[in-house]
């Protein structure tokens, strides 16, 4: 849960950090990733591992392409205005949700896990697939870190994040950077969804919880901070799971929201975010 949440929240954090766009439709990209994973996985009959592999590649690509189109058709035309894009992404949320309901239906459908084994610890057993999800998420997070910190594309993204106008004055085509970041953010959500769908099932309303938790993670961790996002995702994801099991899911959400309120009051830039100067 925490590992997948880190991926989803990182996508949201990247989009806000670089583009200053609060993507309310981020959870729907997650949902779409899961629904497409179900569709891709069902293309291959009798070989769940291959079906899952196709979904893991195909679903993020389709979701990324859709985000690219949304960026060109909607966000770019609004000149990435922070207020206007909130309204626009709310619209995107409902469009994607209703499209999923129309073409996929209201049922929750499972995707068979590509591998099934159980790791037996001395005091309890644990699903092997869940450990695979943690490892896969860690690899993707590491990949994003390498992209941001060690490549030319990452440098361009960071420069655009810090100062859009100056970046333009040095030849950076900011609109292309924005399109790429929006697609990357959506793809991260889709990867997270593909990884989680063998555990949670694909459902047209499944984007709401990840969106809320991603916002909480991003605010607590600090916008645009990869380290903060990962730490906050682990903390929020694990505490959400533990409190939900031992007390109630509602209490888990109440405590998480309370944490956000405290962070906003005492450390508005988040635990790891840089303070605006």
């Amino acid at each position, binding site marked *: 849960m925490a590992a997948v949440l880190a991926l989803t929240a990182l996508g949201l954090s990247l989009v806000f950090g670089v583009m200053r766009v609060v993507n309310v439709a981020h959870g729907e990209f997650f949902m779409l990733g899961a629904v497409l994973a179900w569709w891709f996985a069902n293309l291959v009959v009798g070989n769940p591992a291959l079906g899952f592999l196709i979904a893991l590649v195909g679903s993020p690509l389709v979701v990324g392409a859709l985000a690219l189109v949304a960026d060109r058709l909607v966000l770019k035309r609004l000149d990435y205005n922070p207020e206007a894009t909130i309204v626009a992404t709310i619209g995107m949320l409902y469009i994607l949700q209703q499209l999923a309901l129309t073409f996929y239906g209201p049922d929750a459908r499972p995707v068979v896990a590509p591998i099934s084994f159980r790791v037996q610890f001395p005091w309890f057993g644990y699903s092997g697939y869940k450990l695979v999800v943690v490892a896969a998420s860690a690899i993707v997070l590491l990949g994003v870190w390498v992209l941001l910190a060690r490549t030319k594309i990452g440098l361009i993204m*960071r420069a655009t994040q810090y100062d859009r106008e100056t970046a333009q004055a040095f*030849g950076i085509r900011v609109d292309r950077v924005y399109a790429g970041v929006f697609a990357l953010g959506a793809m991260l959500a889709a990867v997270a969804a593909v990884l989680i769908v063998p555990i949670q099932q694909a459902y047209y309303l499944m984007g709401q919880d990840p969106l809320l938790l991603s916002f909480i993670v991003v605010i607590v961790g600090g916008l645009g901070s990869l380290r903060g996002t990962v730490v906050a995702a682990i903390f929020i994801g694990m505490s959400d799971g533990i409190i939900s099991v031992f007390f109630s899911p509602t209490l888990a959400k109440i405590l998480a929201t309370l944490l956000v309120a405290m962070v906003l009051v005492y450390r508005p830039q988040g635990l790891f975010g*840089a303070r605006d100067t």
Partner: protein
Amino acid sequence: MLTIQNIDCFYGDVQVLRSLSLEAHGGEVLCLLGRNGAGKTTLLKAIMGLVRVRAGTIIFDGQALHNLPASEVARSGVGYVPQGRRLFAELTVAENLEIGLMTRGHGVETRDRALALFPALGERLRQRAGTLSGGEQQMLAMARALCLEPTVLLLDEPMEGLMPAMISRIREVVVGLKEAGVATILVEQRVDAVLSIADRVSFIENGRSRETMRVEEVRERPDLLQHYVGVGA
């Protein structure tokens, strides 16, 4: 050659530049003088494509710049050192230079040439730009712009708040660029510095270029400095 003809620019409904015309030639330093709010910075931003030009033309070596986005203006060879430096404070010195090198220039060779002009930066390549001193930040802003290998360089108050030694270093660099054939448009409040490096001076008032003349003529007309800038020579 950069030719600006009758440009109008607005911030919202407020007109900032009014039918402003200027020319800048290769191998010269054109200084813009005027009071605060006269439109000097807006003019540089308009050339750079950062402020929309509603009317008029900006032509650079036969290419129309007035309807290009800033990224394309930079790619055509216009370098910009903005007011307040506008460094990428969280990036290192090396990364700031890398940003300059991405669009034009010849990689390490260009970077080394820029660093040779400001050797102090060479020792701080891994340091975050935001932690440099004011003078070092200005050097980095200049070096970053030079990494674009510009043929036109726009400098917006590069000497603001600097020590005399740093000012004379920047002056030397600007003179060196002039000798290399670069057209420099300099906005500067320090009249003494302007008179020491400019070839021509254009007085900007209320968004218009009132008078443009050679620097020798300006020295003989302290009344103009008094009128347009509020200081004597």
